[in-house]
């Protein structure tokens, strides 16, 4: 019993010592972490030039025209041009909820606003909502066979900007829900903000969503 305890004690103390040695060491990199006493000026110049070139290349990839930025966690949409915020609008984004597809035991819709970088694909005025299957299933209604029965005008506001696989930035009748995650993946705005976004955005304008 005593021997077992001693062995356990030794093992654990060894573990602590190993960890302490590991943790107390300074952070290191592939490059030498110790600053050389005499830096070769030619090497330094080469490194600085390379760094400057790459930094310039990265800067050139940044959008120069206005772009749309969407914060889905805090439900805000911004129009930005470089560092300048041109619009800060309260939005509604995806609810993250799930709806099972009837007749498909494994199939389901997940109502997330997609994250990543997209571009404005279309600019619509007075858009008509073509209700997808999930909109009927969610309400417990039968999915219509006729396309005409899917059309619902007046619910998307005066404008809509299409992006990704069937998503839109559009208006809403439910302005009291702005600031909350309540949509099926689209991004909702109030009428004034929607008008402003429509004015600034062209087809091809980047939309960055996180």
């Amino acid at each position, binding site marked *: 019993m005593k021997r077992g305890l001693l062995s356990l004690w030794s093992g654990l103390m060894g573990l602590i010592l190993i960890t302490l040695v590991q943790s107390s060491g300074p952070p290191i990199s592939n490059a030498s972490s110790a600053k050389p006493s005499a830096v070769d000026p030619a090497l*330094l110049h080469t490194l600085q030039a390379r760094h400057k070139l790459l930094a310039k290349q990265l800067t050139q990839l940044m959008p120069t025209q206005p772009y749309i930025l969407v914060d889905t966690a805090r439900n805000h949409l911004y129009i930005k041009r470089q560092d300048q915020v041109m619009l800060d609008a309260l939005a509604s984004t995806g609810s993250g909820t799930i709806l099972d597809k009837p007749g498909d035991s494994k199939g389901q819709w997940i109502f997330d606003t997609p*994250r990543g*970088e997209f571009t404005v694909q279309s600019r619509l005025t007075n858009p008509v909502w073509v209700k997808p299957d999930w909109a009927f299933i969610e309400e417990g209604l039968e999915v219509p066979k006729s396309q005409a029965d899917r059309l619902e005008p007046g619910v998307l506001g005066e404008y809509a900007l299409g992006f990704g696989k069937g998503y839109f930035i559009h208006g809403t009748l439910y302005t009291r829900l702005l600031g909350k*995650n309540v949509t099926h993946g689209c991004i909702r705005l109030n009428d004034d903000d929607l008008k402003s976004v429509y004015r600034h955005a062209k087809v091809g304008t980047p939309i960055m969503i*996180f």
Partner: protein
Amino acid sequence: MTFLCATLSVLLSLTSVSWAGELDVVPALDLTDPAVLQEATRVLEEEIKLAVRPQTYVLIDLAASAILIKGRGVELHRIPIESWSTAHLSQLATTYRLRERPLVNRRKIGPVAGAEQDPISLADMPTTFTLQFSPPLTILVLSNTDGNPWQWTMQRGRAWWRRVTSWRNILWTEDKSPSPPSLDLTVSLDHAQSLAWTVTEGMPFLIRRPTTP
């Protein structure tokens, strides 16, 4: 035996605190230092490859103690790191792809689900979670637990258990292959949830390492 375990727990907790403190360094970017330049250049080379594609990516800047959500080189969102620790700093020099998002308890909607379900929100996101990457890397995200000793104990316990099992494998099993790199990040509770919300499957992660202690 109980006394022994209690003593060890205290010792383990104390070493954990000192570790986090010692490695929480925020060096300024010194472009006259070749090591700093080399690291910054390496990260820029990797970042340009990511920024040319239409995607968002994450730069964990250990030198500046911040997690940056970026797209096209633009900083979209910044999450301050309160402390971090790793035993594998020299290995963290590539682009990692997140294997899967942290698990979220999503609510079902529809007529079958009955009453209207609440949407998910930031508050539903985990405050402590592990991110697994390809090539192998484990990032343990811990949230600041000021004023909540129970959460602190649970988090530290989890971090230590991971380390203990890792060392047990090295010391007492036949598997002598090097353990995959790991990084522990402590952020505020809100920021931990924000990070869990933001990351997506396949998202690229870059790490900029400090070059001075």
